């Protein structure tokens, strides 16, 4: 109880950031499930969503700039897939991954060019930026909102994948890419749809994440992106509930480590966890059995 009381702010921050990682990691896990591609550019799409919000809210009221941010992010995800990944569909996996790294490099450099490398202040979104006190800790309302919103979105997504036609197509493609193509699944539109969902969730995640951290820089997406990927691997890549649980575990552990005064190692911990899970149980917590990982 003593531990809980002193660490409550960190645990709350962990749950909040875990929810934000969860929203990003779904994008990774769905793309990996279908294309077997680590979409290195996903973290940067998340970063672009942050900048889009900064620039849009400077000229527009909030109720227009938020939907516009989401639309821009979704479009970006769609365009990136069409331009950088679709031409390489029959190429070796390494080429697609290099292309993803190239896109990430490109997006970071573009962001650098547009902002001249300066950190930008994220706009305050009313109500969710307000303070609230829980027990002994004071925090922003966004901390409370994030896990709730995450769960609602994840349940909606799971229902979509389970009960709709496009969801069925996605599951079929994750199981067997070529056979589902032969069965008449339009793979290109399904892949685009996957990227659209991933980018949509990343945009929501960026709204919540940057409300918490308040500044956006061109490299702001790299670390959350990598951590979300680790969360996806930890939970079992291809599994959506796995990614969400993995993200919460990583978010909470990371913040408790910060609370213990080991801030230098909060990033390293995530990667240590990744390596342990890859060596000990490469399929992750909820991953299906597969032979091509190790």
């Amino acid at each position, binding site marked *: 109880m003593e531990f809980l009381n002193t660490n409550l702010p960190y645990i709350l921050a962990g749950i909040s950031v875990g929810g934000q990682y969860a929203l990003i990691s779904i994008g990774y896990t769905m793309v990996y499930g279908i294309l*077997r*591609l*680590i979409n290195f550019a996903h973290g940067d799409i998340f970063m672009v969503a942050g900048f889009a919000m900064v620039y849009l809210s400077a000229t527009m009221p909030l109720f227009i700039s938020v939907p516009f941010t989401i639309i821009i992010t979704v479009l970006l995800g769609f365009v990136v897939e069409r*331009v*950088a990944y679709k*031409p*390489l569909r029959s*190429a070796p*996996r*390494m*080429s697609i*991954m*290099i*292309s993803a*790294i*190239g*896109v*990430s*490099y*490109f997006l*970071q*450099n*573009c962001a*650098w*060019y*547009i902002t*001249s*490398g300066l950190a930008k202040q994220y706009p305050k979104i009313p109500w969710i930026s307000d303070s609230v006190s829980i027990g002994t800790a004071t925090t922003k309302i966004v901390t409370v909102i994030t896990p709730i919103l995450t769960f609602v979105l994840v349940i909606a997504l799971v229902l979509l994948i389970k009960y709709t036609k496009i969801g069925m197509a996605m599951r079929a493609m994750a199981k067997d890419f070529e056979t589902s193509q032969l069965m008449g699944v339009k793979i290109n539109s399904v892949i685009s749809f996957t990227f659209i969902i991933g980018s949509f969730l990343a945009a929501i995640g960026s709204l919540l994440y940057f409300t918490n951290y308040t500044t956006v820089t061109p*490299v702001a997406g*790299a670390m959350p992106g*990598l951590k979300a*990927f*680790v969360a996806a*691997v930890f939970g079992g890549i291809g599994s959506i509930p796995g990614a969400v649980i993995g993200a919460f575990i990583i978010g909470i552990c990371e913040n408790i480590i910060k609370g213990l005064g080991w801030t*230098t*190692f909060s*990033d*390293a911990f*995530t*990667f*240590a966890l*990744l*390596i342990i899970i*890859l*060596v000990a149980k*490469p399929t992750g917590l909820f991953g299906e059995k597969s032979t*091509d*990982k*190790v």
Partner: protein
Amino acid sequence: MNEKNRNLNGVITPQNKINIFNSVISFVRKNWIGFALIAALFAIIFILEQILPASSMLFVVLKKGAIYALVAVSMNLLNGFTGLFSLGQAGFMLIGSYTYAIFTIPLEARDAVYQYFDGGIINFTVPVPVALIMAGLAAAIFAYLIGLPVLRLKSDYLAIATLGFAEIIRAVFQWDKLGPVTNGSNLLKRFPSFTSTLYPFFVSGICITIIVLLINSSYGRAFKAIRDDEIAAEAMGINLAKHKQLSFTISSFFAGVGGALLAMYQTTVQAAAFKSAMTYEILLIVVIGGIGSVTGSILSSFLFIASSEWWLRFLDDETYIGSFKVPLLASGFRKVVFSIIIMIVVLFYRQGIMGAREISIDAILRFFRKLFAKDNREEAA
């Protein structure tokens, strides 16, 4: 040749020693053009250094290019020749540069450098060449230990695990408890560095030559067999674990030496600079040069450094033609153009500059001979 020179027991006899000596002579005679070109290259650089001011961008490009060439070739050994997709290069460079810096900072400068840690706990220095080798060895030892668990993984999982290790190494080196050795997150400086461009050329040249010799040896053929088909390679009796470990360790050794050279070039080292973005840059150099081509990697690192540091600089400056302001040109535009070029290479010229081919003197001579032969024929017709 070797088979002939050994007697039945495989012992090299005095008679054979002379033969080996002769074969060295004949090797030099056969490749005299190559040796002459290398000598000419060094001579040209030496002369340029006498003529041009030391601050010329050319030397920046040549120095940094030579260092990046070494690191790119070492990454190519792993990614291109062994087929192990590793993204840990920045981490091994970090180990190399820190090892070099820690053991060469002069004793009298230590109090100033380690000002927060009472002058550090290492109270001796080693000569620069020894420190360079130690840098490589330290990186290689770490790579060996990391390789034990990680090399069991494949393709993208190996990539993400090595990337993770590089990040862990970066965090550990910034840890203030290790401050007496690594100076925490503060700069390391005042260690000996080079002024002449010949120095990085010389060190990188030796290292790249060793890598090329390795690639052309039976080990190199085993690496290529593993890259092309692991199962077939194993069936032919190649010990996969051993060869992967060997390639990983050797590649990291040279990445460590490259890191030490980079430290010398920059004259300061800080762990925070060795981000995964650095690995990505080296990977892009390898891809542009052609995965599986040593000369391609060398060529593209000079091109990469030259265009990012020198040729594309004008894109960063606001330019006016008369009173007309050229649009788009502003700080950072260079990198945007640059990344577009890279994306074009990645998407449309997947082979890079060289593919898996190599530039060799023979090939160049053959090309010219063919060209002349064609001309003669045309003249005759």
